[in-house]
């Protein structure tokens, strides 16, 4: 008796459950994928405006980086979706009910439209934006589960017609034993890449696309739609009725695309070998520093002096590297060996302490990221700061790189590849490649970058990773007892 009641109750519950949300219609954004047809029509705070855009920009910059380094699609799926997106632009499947799906999707939506504003202004920026966004869409589309994907496709009119079985029979060779699957009929000009590779059947100007290639139509549509939208945005932009809040943010964003947006490096990192001392810097520069800092160090040793921006760039870098204020003062004092004590104390000591947040407004300055080094404070004659990949002439850059890194395995055979990246203005990619080559002995492979496939966005990142690898190698040696032979 009781069992039956329980059974009935269970059945009743099941029924109500069946009524509940198969379609998750309580979500404002029912699908993970978005075609970005409609702009967000709500009030957004300035912080949201900026954060959504910045985070998305990190992802897009990383995608561009992957292209510059010739990664395969599969590799990009890992790097972008698993590493980068999970940090900055998480976008979970609808089945993952515990996550704040609407918030994630809203951020994705807002970020895309803000970046449209930032990148519509020049043809070059538009082209790069479209390429990166289409790739992001492709990556997400391919990893989406097929039921959700089908629902998403159903939500939008793609204007394709399902070919009738008679049509298909006429076209598909009858020799194949398996039943031909579904074919979608579209004008061939909508799928030129499929036509070029003969992945469709053609009849009277219509391409018959097998279901397996359906994705290609979707991607073409996405790209074409975005290109048109950007052109329209560019035309409408001058009429943007706003105060001075948004334009600076937009300007900053389009600059950020060039350098790759960096993660925060504002706290001093404790080096793996304990406290960093002034007398360790020479060796450390030789072993672990990126070209910009190596150059500054060499100029400092050569001239026994550095000008203001050089001191700033190098000093903050050393701070984050782990140099304490006492060691820093000692370092600079010894480096400026030709000047007298009282002059040093009068002219330099205060500024060094200031940069450590011990004077004045006590601001703890972060070390400059690659973007900042590239973009702000252009070096003039007599300056040694900046980014060598950008600010050196091609000849000087090559000889400098070979001088600095020749003993680490960088040879003139590597130069053409590096110089190509420099010519294409992918400075951080060139720097990353140099990192890979000079750390090949520690097992770094091409494409690995500074760990997990990421490219250099901050000089301290370069140095920290280099030190980490050296430490690992040391530990490897100790554990074995013998010297570990690296391939």
């Amino acid at each position: 008796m009781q069992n039956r009641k329980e059974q009935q109750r269970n059945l009743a519950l099941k029924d109500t459950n069946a009524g509940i949300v198969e379609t998750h219609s309580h979500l404002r954004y029912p699908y993970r994928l978005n075609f970005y047809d409609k702009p967000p029509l709500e009030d957004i705070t300035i912080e949201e405006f900026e954060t959504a855009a910045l985070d998305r920009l990190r992802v897009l910059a990383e995608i561009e980086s992957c292209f510059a380094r010739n990664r395969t699609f599969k590799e990009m799926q890992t790097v972008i979706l698993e590493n980068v997106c999970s940090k900055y632009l998480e976008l979970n499947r609808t089945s993952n009910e515990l996550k704040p799906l609407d918030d994630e999707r809203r951020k994705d939506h807002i970020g895309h439209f803000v970046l449209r504003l930032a990148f519509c202004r020049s043809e070059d920026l538009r082209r790069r934006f479209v390429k990166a966004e289409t790739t992001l869409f492709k990556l997400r589309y391919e990893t989406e589960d097929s039921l959700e994907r089908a629902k998403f496709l159903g939500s939008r009119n793609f204007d394709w017609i399902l070919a009738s079985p008679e049509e298909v029979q006429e076209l598909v060779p009858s020799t194949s034993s398996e039943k031909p699957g579904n074919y979608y009929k579209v004008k061939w000009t909508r799928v030129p890449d499929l036509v070029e590779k003969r992945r469709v059947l053609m009849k009277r100007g219509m391409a018959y696309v097998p279901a397996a290639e359906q994705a290609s139509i979707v991607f073409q549509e996405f790209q074409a739609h975005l290109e048109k939208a950007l052109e329209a945005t560019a035309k409408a932009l001058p009429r943007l009725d706003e105060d001075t809040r948004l334009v600076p943010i937009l300007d900053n964003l389009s600059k950020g695309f060039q350098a790759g947006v960096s993660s925060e490096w504002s706290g001093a990192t404790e080096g793996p070998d304990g406290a960093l001392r002034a007398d360790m810097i020479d060796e450390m520069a030789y072993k672990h520093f990126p070209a910009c800092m190596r150059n500054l160090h060499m100029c400092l040793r050569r001239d026994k002096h550095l000008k203001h921006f050089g001191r700033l760039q190098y000093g903050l870098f050393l701070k984050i590297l782990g140099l304490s204020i006492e060691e820093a003062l000692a370092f600079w004092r010894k480096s400026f060996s030709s000047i007298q004590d009282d002059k040093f104390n009068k002219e330099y000591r205060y500024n060094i302490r200031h940069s450590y947040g011990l004077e004045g407004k006590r601001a703890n300055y972060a070390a400059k990221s690659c973007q900042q080094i590239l973009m702000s404070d252009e070096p003039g004659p007599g300056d040694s700061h900046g980014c060598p990949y950008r600010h050196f002439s091609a000849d000087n850059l090559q000889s400098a790189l070979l001088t600095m890194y020749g003993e680490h395995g960088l040879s003139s055979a590597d130069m053409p590849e590096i110089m190509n990246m420099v010519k294409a203005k992918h400075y951080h990619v060139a720097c990353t490649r140099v990192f890979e080559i000079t750390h090949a002995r520690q097992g770094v492979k091409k494409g690995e970058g500074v760990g997990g496939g990421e490219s250099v966005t901050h000089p301290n990142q370069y140095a920290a990773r280099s030190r980490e690898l050296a430490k690992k190698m040391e530990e490897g040696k100790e554990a074995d007892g013998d010297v570990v032979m690296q391939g």
Partner: protein
Amino acid sequence: MAVPDAEPTTPDIMLAFYRRLYPFKSIFTWLNHEHAPTKLFTHREFAFTLQGDVYLRYNSFSNADELKKQVCTLNPTRFEIGPVYSARPRDKKTVRPAAFSPQLRELVFDIDMTDYDSIRTCCSGADICKRCWTFISAAVRVLDRALRDQFGYKHLLWVYSGRRGIHLWISDREALELTDEQRRALVGWLTVIQGGKEMHKKVNVRMGLKPLPPSIASAYKMLLPVFHDLILEDQDCFASEEGWQALLHLIPDKDIVRSLEDKWEDDPKRSSEDKWQDVEDEIERKKGKGSAILNAAKEDIVLQYTYPRLDAEVSKHRNHLLKAPFCIHPKTGRVCVPVDPRTIDKFDPARVPTVSQLLNELDKLALPQAGESAEHHADWERTSLKPYVEMLDKHVMGLMEETRKSKQKMDLSW
């Protein structure tokens, strides 16, 4: 026997030809698609090659008379037709570079006999004869069918290039509007023969062991008889050592290759037909998995020797300049006449009218009767050029009909 070159054309001859015989009005309506001048003509680039190889670009005209006047003034050895630009080409210097770009252009193809030099045995270089013309006629039939069936194009004009090749101009509206990317894709679809001199196997169109894609399979059906008649019989491509060595490179079975090599070295006079039979016998003998690969290789060989060899660069870019129909080829004196693809097998390059022949015909005609004003532009009607101009006019009628119909539709659909 190679087609003999006519006497070299002199500037006087060219001028007389342009004044009295060149069908400017027909060419105008062919490009313009209707009687009243539109941007299709007024914004169209013409490039002139003058005596002494002077090259003049970015010329444009308001109507057929202006074009004729300039051609007669300049007396070029040839002139070429380019795309329709966003502004009149003659105004190019006054327009911002960003505002001057190609908008529309016929879809064009160029098949040149020299691309077949590695496989034709009767002629080489600039020579051409009725025998090796068969390569071209096979190519024309395959492409004509493919473009009509698969792409749905209707307005195709095939034009003899004057010496050793053939051009195709497609004037369908959709074809005119194709972007460079789309043209590239279309060429990719049609291209089967790829690879330079150093590449032995030039046909790579399957995915693994799958059968030929349907579009190529239908071309194969058309080309198999051509292979037997032209390659094996007429050209005897595998008679020479070089010829049959090339064939052996395409057979993916070392044992078969070795046994054939031995057999053919011993019997150098063996005909291509017999040699091909040998190949087929060897493949028959091999049963099991190997035979599928070998049959596929056999099909690929047929394609490699007969499938159309296109000059992809000509078709891919909208701004490519291509010689105008009815020009005179300076080295042969022959007129670049339209060719009917349905009767292309009967086409003989040696019987194409030359300019001297045409002018002779005009001279022989009775002098105009008293009172009859000489209608100079219609003189072609009284020469051997007549059927060719009529071919163009018929083609143009089709285009104008199409334009009229689509205008009617637009008028009604408000």
